[in-house]
C-alpha cells in the first residue's frame, strides 16, 4: 500500500465532494437535524414549566438519572435517547458519498484511466473508503460536540457531562468510524451491482435497520440509551461485518472485473 497514491485519491475525492453542493448538504444536514430535534425539545422543556403528569411513559426512565431534578432528568432522558441517531449519520452519509463516487465513476467511465496508471486497485479503494468515511466521522464528532455544549448551555452543564459520558465517548471513537467504514464498503459493493445512486443508497440503507432495532429494543426494555456492553458488542459485530465486506469487495473489485463489468 503506497500512501502517495491513497493520498492522491483522497485529495481528488475531497475536491469532488467540495464541488458537489448537494452531496455536501447530505453530509451536514442530517447530522444537524438529528441534533436539532432533541435540542428543540430540551429548549421547550427549559422555557416551560414541567408538569410531571405530562411526562407519561418517560417518568419510568427518570430514576436512571439520580441526583437530577425531574425537569433536568427529563431533559437528560431526551438528549440521551436521541443519541442513537448519532449512529445513523455514519451509517447513512458515507454510503451516500461512496455510492455517488462509484456510480459517478461508472457513469463518467473514469475508472479505466485510473486503473491504467501504476495505482493498485486496493489503493484506489482505500482512498475512496477514507475519503467517503472521513466527512461523516468529522460531521458526527462535530455535531456530537455541538450537541453536548449547546444542550449544556440551554439547560444545565450537567447535560453536557451526561452526553459526553463514557459509553458515548467510546462509541464515538470506535463504533462511529467502524460503522462509517462498513457503510462505505457496502456502498461500494452495492454500487457495483446497480447503475443508479439512489437505488444503491436505498438497498444499502438496510444498514440502519439493526441500529434502529437495537435502539428501539433498548427503549422498550427500559434503557434511556446504549450501554457499554452494547457498544462493545456493536464494535465486534461491525468489525466482523467489515471483514466479510472486505473479502466480498476484494473479489468484486479485481481490476479486470471492474473493467469488464463496471468500466
Amino acid at each position: 500500500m503506497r500512501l502517495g497514491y491513497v493520498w492522491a485519491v483522497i485529495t481528488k475525492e475531497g475536491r469532488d465532494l467540495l464541488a458537489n453542493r448537494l452531496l455536501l448538504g447530505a453530509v451536514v444536514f442530517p447530522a444537524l437535524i438529528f441534533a436539532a430535534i432533541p435540542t428543540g425539545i430540551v429548549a421547550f422543556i427549559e422555557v416551560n414549566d414541567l408538569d410531571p403528569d405530562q411526562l407519561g411513559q418517560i417518568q419510568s426512565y427518570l430514576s436512571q438519572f439520580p441526583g437530577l431534578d425531574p425537569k433536568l432528568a427529563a431533559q437528560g432522558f431526551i438528549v440521551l435517547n436521541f443519541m442513537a441517531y448519532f449512529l445513523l449519520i455514519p451509517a447513512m452519509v458515507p454510503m451516500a458519498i461512496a455510492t455517488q463516487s462509484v456510480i459517478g465513476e461508472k457513469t463518467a467511465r473514469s475508472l479505466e484511466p485510473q486503473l491504467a496508471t501504476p495505482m493498485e486497485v486496493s489503493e484506489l479503494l482505500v482512498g475512496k473508503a477514507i475519503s467517503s468515511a472521513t466527512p461523516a466521522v468529522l460531521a458526527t464528532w462535530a455535531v456530537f460536540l455541538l450537541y453536548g455544549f449547546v444542550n449544556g448551555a440551554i439547560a444545565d452543564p450537567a447535560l453536557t457531562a451526561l452526553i459526553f459520558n463514557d459509553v458515548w465517548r467510546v462509541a464515538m471513537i470506535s463504533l462511529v468510524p467502524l460503522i462509517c467504514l462498513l457503510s462505505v464498503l457496502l456502498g461500494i459493493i452495492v454500487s457495483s451491482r446497480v447503475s443508479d445512486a439512489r437505488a444503491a443508497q436505498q438497498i444499502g440503507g438496510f444498514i440502519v435497520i439493526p441500529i434502529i432495532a437495537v435502539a428501539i429494543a433498548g427503549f422498550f426494555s427500559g434503557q434511556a440509551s446504549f450501554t457499554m456492553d452494547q457498544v462493545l458488542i456493536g464494535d465486534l459485530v461491525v468489525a466482523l461485518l467489515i471483514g466479510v465486506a472486505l473479502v466480498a469487495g476484494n473479489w468484486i473489485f479485481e481490476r479486470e472485473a471492474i473493467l469488464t463489468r463496471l468500466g
Partner: protein
Amino acid sequence: MIEASSLGKRFGTLTAVDELSFTVGDGEIFGLLGPNGAGKTTTVRMLAGLIAPSAGSARINGLELGPQSQAIRALTGVLTESPGLHDKLTARHNLGYYGRLYGLRGATLRRAVDRYLGVVGMSAEADRRVGGFSKGMRQKVAIARALLHEPEVLYLDEPTSALDPSAAKTIRDFVATLRDAGRSIVVCTHNLDEAERLCDRIGIMRSTLLKVDTPARLRRGNGTAAVRVDLVGARRPESFLGLLAELPFVEGARTLDGSLYVEVADPRGDNPELVRALVVAGARIVGVVEEAATLEQVYLDLVGETGQRDARVGEEAA
C-alpha cells in the same frame, strides 16, 4: 518496443482476441483497424497491463506482461475510448490528479500540466470544470492526460474523434513528433484516412490480425501497384507493350482507354526508370499516376460486413 506473441483473450466462451502477434518498434506508429467488437480495445487493455491475457505473452520495452504489469503501466500512456474525466474538477485538477498517479510531484507536475494543456490548446480553459466542456474539449484534456508523464509507449483509442479538423491536425502532428522522439505508439481508429496519414504500419484485425503492412503496401494488395501512363501523339499505347515486357522491374502491362497500365513493385523507385525508358522509345507522356486501391477497399475486402458475432464480442469485452 511492443512485442506481442500469440496473445489471446476469452470472456467465458467468447474469444475476443485470438493468436495476435505483432511488434511495434521504437519510433513507430502502428494502427489497429477493425470493425466494432474486433478486439481492438481488449488488445490495448491487455498490452497496457489492465487485463490479463488468456493466452500468449507480450513484452513492453523488455518488461513482461503479467509479472511486471505495474511497471508497464508506469511507462504507458492510454487514451481510453471514452475521455473518462472527473466532471466536478477543473482541467488542471484532473491532470494534476493523474500526474500524481504517474509519480509526478511539485514543480515537475505543474510544468507538465501547463505544458500539455498548451499542447492541446486548452491553457485558457485550465481552471474551468470539465463538466462544462464540449466533447472535443474533453477529448483534448484526455489526450493531455495520456501524454502528461511522457510515456515511452502510447495507446490512443480514436484520438481525433470529436475534434475539429484543425485540432485533429494539431494532435496528429504532435503524435508524429512523439514518434520522431522514439516512442512506440498504437492507434486504434475507424478513421481510415487518419490511419493512412498517421501510421507507419497498419494491422487490420477481427479477433486476430488479418493483415499487417504499411498503408501503401496494403493499398496495393498483391504487392504491386498499377501505374497509369497517359500518352499523346501519333504512336498508339499498344506499340510500347513489347518494350515494357523487356524491362526487369515491370511485372505486367496492358492498355485501356488510350493509356498504359504498368504493374511495378515499387512505384517510387521504378517510375523514374519507367518514364525514362518510354521517353527514349519515343513516348510523349502527359501524366503518370499510381492507381492503387483505397485503404477502405482493402479494409472492406478483408473484414467484410460487420456480423452479429462482432457485436456480441464488443458487448462482452466492453
